């Protein structure tokens, strides 16, 4: 008993450099976010004067944000938030479904041709977003999809990265289950839905987190296709706040805060599954 105690305190002592290092890193990681939080509760003047403690101006900034949102979207902050949720949510669900289908197909039915196709698809990862903006915009406008959720998510749902992630994680999917299921007469698709999806749920969670964050944070593409203000997203609203001849920092940081809450929440809720799912620890 005393021995283990001594041992553990010795271990802890040896870990002191690690703790110090971690504390420094965490401070650097968190400080800008802390600053954002305090700025959201202060007046613009206080922010520019370098005030870094919480102030009493949060409500005013929030009201100003509500007003700014209703001025620019002809709706409300709730509507803008809802838009962002809607688009990001739709993109996430469709994307993880389609990409998991493909990842599963590439890994568990793999042959030479499919491997070649996979190599070709990987090329899509290297296409710069600025290059395809104009052709894609023209496509969306011909299809009369501008300002709809479809225009937002269509280019983003099938991504080589997601397919790659599902493919890699599918390596841990036990093939003998598949054989057994086939003998039981399950169709190939039934195997996917009834066996694969439940087993791979932490991969799905991890993919959902990544996909949601990307979709929620998208800016350049939505700005091009969401031409109607009623379809505005949070990123566009925040960009609106930072332009104009004068900038109100308190208000701006309140907007930034609202922009960051959902992604932080999703990560906190799913962080365990996220960590497990990312390299496919199958439970």
């Amino acid at each position, binding site marked *: 008993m005393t021995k283990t105690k001594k041992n*553990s305190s010795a*271990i*802890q002592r040896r870990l002191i450099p*690690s703790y110090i290092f*971690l504390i420094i*890193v*965490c401070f650097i*990681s968190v400080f*800008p*976010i802390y*600053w*954002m939080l305090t700025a959201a509760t202060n007046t613009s003047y206080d922010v520019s004067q*370098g005030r870094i403690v919480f102030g009493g101006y949060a409500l005013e900034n929030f009201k100003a944000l509500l007003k700014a949102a209703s001025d620019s979207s002809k709706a409300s902050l709730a509507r803008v938030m809802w838009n962002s949720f809607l688009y990001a949510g739709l993109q996430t669900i469709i994307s993880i479904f389609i990409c998991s*289908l*493909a990842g599963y*197909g*590439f890994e568990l*039915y793999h*042959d030479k041709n*499919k491997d070649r*196709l996979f190599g070709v*698809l990987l*090329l*899509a*990862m*290297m*296409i*710069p*977003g*600025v*290059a*395809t903006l*104009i052709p*894609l915009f023209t*496509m969306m406008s011909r299809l009369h999809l501008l300002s709809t959720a479809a225009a937002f998510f269509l280019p983003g749902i*099938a991504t080589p*990265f997601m*397919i790659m992630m599902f493919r890699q994680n599918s390596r841990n999917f036990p093939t003998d289950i598949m054989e057994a299921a086939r003998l039981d007469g399950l169709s*190939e*698709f039934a195997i*996917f839905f009834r066996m694969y999806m439940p087993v791979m749920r932490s991969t799905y969670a991890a993919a959902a987190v990544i996909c949601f*964050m990307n979709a929620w*944070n998208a*800016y*350049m593409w939505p700005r091009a296709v969401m031409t109607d203000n009623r379809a505005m997203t949070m*990123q566009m609203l*925040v960009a609106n706040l930072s332009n104009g001849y004068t900038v109100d*920092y308190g208000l701006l*940081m309140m907007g*930034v805060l609202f*922009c*960051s809450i959902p*992604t*932080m929440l999703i*990560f906190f809720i799913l*962080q365990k599954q996220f*960590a497990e799912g*990312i*390299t496919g*620890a199958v439970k």
Partner: protein
Amino acid sequence: MNKRRSIQAKQGRAGWMFLAPATILIFIMSFWPMIQAFIISLKKGSSANMTWQEPLYHNYERILQDTTFKTAMGNTFLYLLVEVPIMLILAILLAQILNNRDLKFRGLFRTMVFMPCAVSLVSYALIFKSLFATQGLINSALMHLGLISENINWLGTTATARAVIIIGLIWRWTGYNMVFYLAGLQNIEYSVYEAAKIDGANGWKTFWSITVPLLKPTIVMTVIMSINGTLQLFDESVNLTNGGPANTTITMSHYIWNMSLGQGVAKFGYASALAFVVFIMVGILAFINMKVGDTRD
């Protein structure tokens, strides 16, 4: 025998069915626009009625004389060579430390390191811009500590502006990469480490002889992701420094944006040619990386 073959055929068909939706989408949403962009890159004139360049490859020829693009390329590769190694090494180190089961508050530390990833690109550029403003918090903190005697013009001086962009990138993405490594490490049996410890290997040695080799596939993936992300770097250049001072921090994507939609110039032909060159560069680098780090088969 016959039956068996038909089952195999059925399975093969099912396999292709699984791939079909994603494959079709990628072809329509990525390759087709890229082909169109390539056709545009052979043209000139206003976007409403473009005509063929003479000779057809003229836009590509022109790139060779474009000093601004050369600057942008230099900047982008500088970010790549400085930022990516620092970030990835930091991420592996953090993952290694956080993987130690004796460490207390692991969950808390992990969450805090990951937190910057939850901040959107638009937002974090705004935060960094305010912090590094001439009268910003960083300068006043340094003044109070007596480290500097007059305000540093962080974003107005080439060297510091580049440094701020690199610091911003490291801040935003280290946690993200760390999560991948951490997950990779958790797949390594803890007993391997215990054994190494008994053999008397120190932390550094375990790191190089056990952690790095076992993490190789993860490292290859994160390197490809980082190369890809850095060569297409856009938001930081636009929102943090606007490419300045004197274009010394502009990235390739930012320059392409300026040539197409950014400043009303709408030189889509030339911008598409530039974009194609970036595409080829990313492709080559990713290919080399995959060949070097290939472990499968």
